[in-house]
């Protein structure tokens, strides 16, 4: 299949939202039997491009061609019809239906007008096996499945449509390492079967492994298309952010001030079955990472510290004092001074229809309201200060948070908690699905906060981040801290090894440890 014309052409696609051009005369050619990666910061126009291609958004101008025939996609159903299937980052599954129902929702097998459940189940089982989800029961309700399994169902659902063009939008961000492997095998097989794949990811090593071609988007335009591996990571990142790429991670302070008493001291914390005797300490000025495979109790640990879990056993000491944390309200009170940046910003972190100002001041409202009435002036001042500190764009405080890009929304979540000036900051995978530029800003900010005396406990699924940013990393395995890595032992290899609970991980050799500078 050498040098045949592109299956998919998008020409001159333009889409405006109000005054903002999300896409501005964008072009894209995708050929069959290729994996085509789309790169770009959040807000570069990738998601809009995909929405146009999957029929969710109608472009203001431009044309789409499939096999050189012009097509229009007024609805997602029309796009499916034309052979375009999309695996969405925000899952498009229906929680109250079974996995099998979901997989075949677009076109269930019918007999005499009714859904043929036996055949549906067989088809769903086949699709699940192809997608690497043979452990998922087709009759399980999607609401009862963990996130990584839902993602597999989502992939199976796209496969069952036998698409010619398959779009993956951050499709691996919720998957465990083992799942990612299965999915990659699958994608390579689909490529050899002649599908055209569009692959969107923020994980550079995934793109390096999979992609044949890359297109970089910036400010709604495609700025460059090139064969994969013909540019260095550094060059690609520079194309994406349009400015010189400096070290991704801020420098670490020299190891030293270890004598100080820990601010957060946890001993034998138990919440069965997810937490089995977790002990850890975090000192002022430290950024401590939480690593390990997904679902080893990291999220539960953060929730436990923040007073969300009931029936907890063990000791939590704040600045040396044993304390019972009954609720998030208590945890964030001035006596304890804790903040949790949640994983799911849309449901746990933000009130989407409310404005940036209202979101920012929500947790700290008591402090602006000396007599039970909000003092608008002091609220406005603090909000403006935070917007400037975190460089939240657009810098108007009175726009609904829902209109901001993902990166800026995450900044609002972080800023909201900084308003309380917390001493202990817990973060639950805060950079998931966020662009490189915003990530860098968040890293720098965390380091600044630590330098200012905060104790930071930082859970991440991104090993680069843990290695590059943290002073120490605690690797969790089956609900306990399995290993502590710091200094020379803190390498990506050691992290992966201890995450899988392997003994050889002790000999850190530094490979893959340094930040890509």
């Amino acid at each position, binding site marked *: 299949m050498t040098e045949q014309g592109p299956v998919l052409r998008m020409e001159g696609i333009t889409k405006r939202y109000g005054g903002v051009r999300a896409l501005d005369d964008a072009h894209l050619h995708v050929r069959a039997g290729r994996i085509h990666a789309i790169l770009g910061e959040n807000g570069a126009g990738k998601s809009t491009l995909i929405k146009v291609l999957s029929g969710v958004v109608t472009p203001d101008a431009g044309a789409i061609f499939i096999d050189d025939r012009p097509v229009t996609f007024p609805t997602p159903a029309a796009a*499916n019809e034309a052979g375009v299937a999309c695996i*969405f980052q925000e899952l498009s599954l229906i*929680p*109250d*239906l079974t996995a099998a129902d979901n997989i075949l929702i677009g076109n*269930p097998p019918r007999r005499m007008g009714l*859904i043929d459940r036996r055949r549906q189940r067989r088809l769903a089982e086949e699709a699940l096996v192809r997608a690497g989800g043979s452990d998922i*029961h087709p009759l399980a309700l999607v609401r009862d499945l963990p996130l990584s399994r839902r993602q597999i169902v989502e992939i199976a659902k796209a496969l069952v449509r036998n698409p010619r063009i398959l779009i993956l939008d951050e499709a691996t961000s919720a998957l465990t390492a083992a799942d990612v492997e299965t999915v990659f095998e699958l994608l390579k097989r689909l490529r050899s079967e002649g599908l055209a794949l569009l692959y969107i990811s923020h994980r550079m090593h995934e793109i390096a492994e999979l992609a044949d071609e890359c297109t970089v988007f910036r400010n709604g335009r495609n700025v460059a298309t090139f064969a994969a591996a013909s540019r260095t990571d550094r060059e690609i990142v520079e194309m994406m952010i349009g400015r010189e790429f400096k070290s991704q991670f801020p420098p670490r302070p020299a190891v030293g001030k270890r004598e100080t008493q820990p601010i957060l001291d946890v001993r034998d914390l138990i919440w069965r079955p997810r937490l089995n005797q977790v002990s850890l300490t975090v000192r002022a000025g430290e950024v401590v990472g939480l690593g390990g495979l997904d679902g080893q109790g990291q999220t539960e640990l953060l929730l436990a510290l923040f007073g969300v879990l*009931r*029936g907890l056993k063990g000791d939590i000491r704040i600045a040396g004092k044993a304390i019972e944390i009954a609720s998030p309200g208590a945890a964030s009170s001035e006596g304890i001074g804790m903040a949790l940046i949640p994983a799911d910003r849309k449901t746990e972190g933000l009130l989407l229809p409310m404005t940036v100002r209202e979101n920012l001041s929500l947790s700290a409202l008591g402090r602006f309201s000396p007599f039970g009435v909000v003092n608008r002036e002091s609220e406005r001042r603090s909000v403006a200060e935070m917007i400037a500190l975190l460089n939240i764009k657009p810098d108007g405080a009175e726009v609904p948070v829902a209109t901001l890009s993902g990166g800026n929304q995450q900044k609002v979540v972080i800023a909201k908690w900084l308003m309380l000036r917390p001493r202990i900051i817990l973060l639950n995978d805060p950079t998931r699905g966020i662009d490189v530029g915003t990530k860098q800003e968040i890293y720098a900010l965390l380091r600044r906060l630590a330098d200012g005396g905060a104790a930071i406990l930082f859970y991440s699924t991104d090993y680069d981040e843990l290695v590059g940013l943290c002073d120490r990393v605690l690797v969790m395995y089956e609900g306990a801290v399995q290993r502590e890595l710091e200094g020379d032992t803190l390498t990506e290899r050691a992290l992966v090894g201890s995450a899988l609970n392997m003994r050889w991980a002790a000999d850190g050799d530094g490979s893959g440890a340094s930040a890509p500078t």
Partner: protein
Amino acid sequence: MKEWKYFFAQHRGALAAALLFFVMFTIYAVNHPAGLTPNVVQTAANKGVLLALVAIGQTFVVLTAGIDLSVGMVFVLCNCVASYVVAGSPTMVAFGIAAVLATGLFCGAANGAIVIFGRLQPIVATIASGAVYFGLALWLRRSPGASPKFSSDLADVMTGKVLGIVPSSGIFLAAIVLCVWIPFRRSPLGRAVYATGSSESAAYMSGVPVKRAKFAAYMFSGFFSALGGLFLTFFTYSGEASSANGSTYTLYSIAAVVLGGVSLFGGRGSAIGAVFGALAFRAIGDLLFVFDVDPLWQPLFQGTVLLLAVSVGSARLLGVRNKLELFS
């Protein structure tokens, strides 16, 4: 074994409602002075079927995460229409029944159009349209009555007993569930209704015809309310524009749906559950009768049972150890 678990998980609400009904009905029948005779069953079935039909209608809309507060008024309006047109020769009666059902379908279509194309909140849209339907009913029947040629023969058949044992209204109810609900549940349209109620945006993204699903749900709601109104006419031989009836049936239909395990958030539950919910709710009233309690206590008692039943449904929340699950 495992298969069974999945089945149970999906039908928990309906099974619980069925259990509640059978327990209550057994207590009722055992304590009834006449015992479990065909006549006792017939009376219970005739009373239960009215609410059951309206509750089935409500189920369709609630499954889409909407609510239809006009069901009671459609029920009353169709009762008034039926009192005029279900009369005369068999052919005319047939046309009359068709006209009654068409009235219900029209009301449902109007509701659907207002909610979908007018983009109004279902709760507001159906309060308003319900008032209009009640106005029409009043205009038709200023005072209770019926056409002199009202087909009381048909009415007697539909409220009587088959072979002297089985209540025909019960058979009708079972038949309608079998012929309408079961196929609906297995049809692509039915799946679209569940999908829309469970997550409208995900359904839209998956290419599910969301608008068609909602529209169909309101049509079904109107249709079943009309069937209820028709049956009311069979029992009373007359039509009456009773505001009390309309409001009561609207509220009780929601109670029955909740008791039957249908989630007011949409996407979960079934009409079979709602039928048992309706029968159980009716059985509560009958229980008071056999224990010779003053009927004045009925609302208090029904309300208490409803609260208790709903509390049992949410008892699992007491065992929640992760407080975030309280909100999902």
